[in-house]
């Protein structure tokens, strides 16, 4: 898989399809770091492990480089979906980005609870089947039980928050400027632990239809809050009701931007109606 990725990368550089390959490099101190490969001779140092999300870095590279500069990114499934979401939100120009898709291993999929551990455009590696996150014991612990139990469970983990904003900064799709989480109206500044309802739920809801379930937020969290589990049920709803998954198709817009009648026919339940022709009403 590694050799094939290197071959493709070399080809791209030699044919000048892109100005640089953005991937992971093992440097001379044997430490893995993101690196921009602009010379084919450098490519020997390219590595694929560990999982490292490059979408946000790729975006900042593209923003600071000249307009005709093209970038090829070595990306996993989640990374590719994040790039597509960024394209949909007009953060990256579609023409300026190339992807070299690599598949994740079964172990990695189990760690990330990934239901789609491969990119749509797969270049190297073998597809492995995804994991259903709702069958996992770690997730069930948080999603099963009555409301009171769940509330206590979440309160105990969210109380650990030190408000480092790591979840927001590491998220490949959190790009808003200015951010509501820094505004006193919504979230009180300087208060630790963060206000639980506002800080965590506003952040989670803003990503409701864009979350690609990469798990960067919980990997970045220094106090191990399982932030990805907050998103799972919303992702599942979007999938079930509208057949929408974030980051799959750059042409399909998020369903929460369209009205009900434009949807493909699904057996959806409408919220409680008020019958305006009731006898009790004097009209």
């Amino acid at each position, binding site marked *: 898989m590694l050799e094939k990725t290197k071959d493709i990368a070399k080809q791209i550089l030699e044919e000048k399809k892109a100005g640089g390959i953005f991937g992971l490099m093992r440097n001379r101190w044997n430490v893995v770091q993101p690196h921009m490969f602009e010379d084919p001779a450098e490519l020997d140092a390219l590595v694929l492990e560990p999982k490292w999300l490059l979408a946000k870095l790729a975006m900042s590279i593209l923003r600071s480089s000249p307009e005709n500069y093209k970038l090829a990114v070595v990306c996993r499934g989640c990374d590719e979906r994040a790039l597509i979401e960024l394209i949909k939100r007009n953060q990256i120009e579609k023409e300026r980005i190339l992807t070299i898709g690599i598949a994740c291993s079964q172990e990695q999929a189990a760690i990330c609870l990934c239901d789609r551990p491969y990119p749509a455009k797969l270049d190297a590696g073998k597809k492995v089947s995804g994991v259903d996150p709702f069958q996992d014991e770690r997730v069930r612990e948080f999603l099963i039980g*009555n409301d009171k139990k769940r*509330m206590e469970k979440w309160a105990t983990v969210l109380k650990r928050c030190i408000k480092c904003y790591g979840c927001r900064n590491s998220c490949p799709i959190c790009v808003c400027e200015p951010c509501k989480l820094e505004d006193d109206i919504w979230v009180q500044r300087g208060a630790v*632990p963060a*206000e639980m*309802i506002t800080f965590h739920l506003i952040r989670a809801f803003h990503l409701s239809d864009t979350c690609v379930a990469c798990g960067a937020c919980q990997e970045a969290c220094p106090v191990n809050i399982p932030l990805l589990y907050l998103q799972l*049920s919303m992702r599942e*709803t979007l999938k079930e009701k509208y057949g929408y998954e974030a980051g799959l198709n750059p042409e399909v817009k998020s369903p929460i931007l369209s*009205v*009900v009648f434009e949807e493909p026919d699904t057996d959806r339940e409408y919220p409680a*109606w008020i019958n305006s022709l009731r006898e009790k009403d004097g009209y």
Partner: protein
Amino acid sequence: MNEPRILVFACRWCGLIGADAAGKKRISLPARFRVIPVECAALVETDAILRALAGGIDGVAILGCHIGGCRYNNANQTAIKRMELLKDLLDTTGIGSNRLLFSFGTAHEDYQFEEIIKNFFDELAVLSPLDPWLAPFGVIS
């Protein structure tokens, strides 16, 4: 136990007039709710709902126009979808989706307004308060 408190966001074309009419007809209503007029139900940000819950409000109701009766390009329909997603999030965290009410009515539906608010109060009264989630600051007194 304290009586629950409700915040109502009412669209000014329908929900608000209905609420107003309920007052004009002297229908007896529970006291602990406040109505905030908004231009359209779709203008109620989900963040504002979360902010209200964090401020010690027990339930939030959003009243819009009937499906098909929206003045603003069927905006209430996009709002439904957003609220449904928010309900999922509230259920996940155990706050409970029944703290959020999304309903539609027209301007003359004052009796329905009364019924909605009374039912909502009854529903909220049996829920446990949000205490474990409220930080010691920022609570609206």
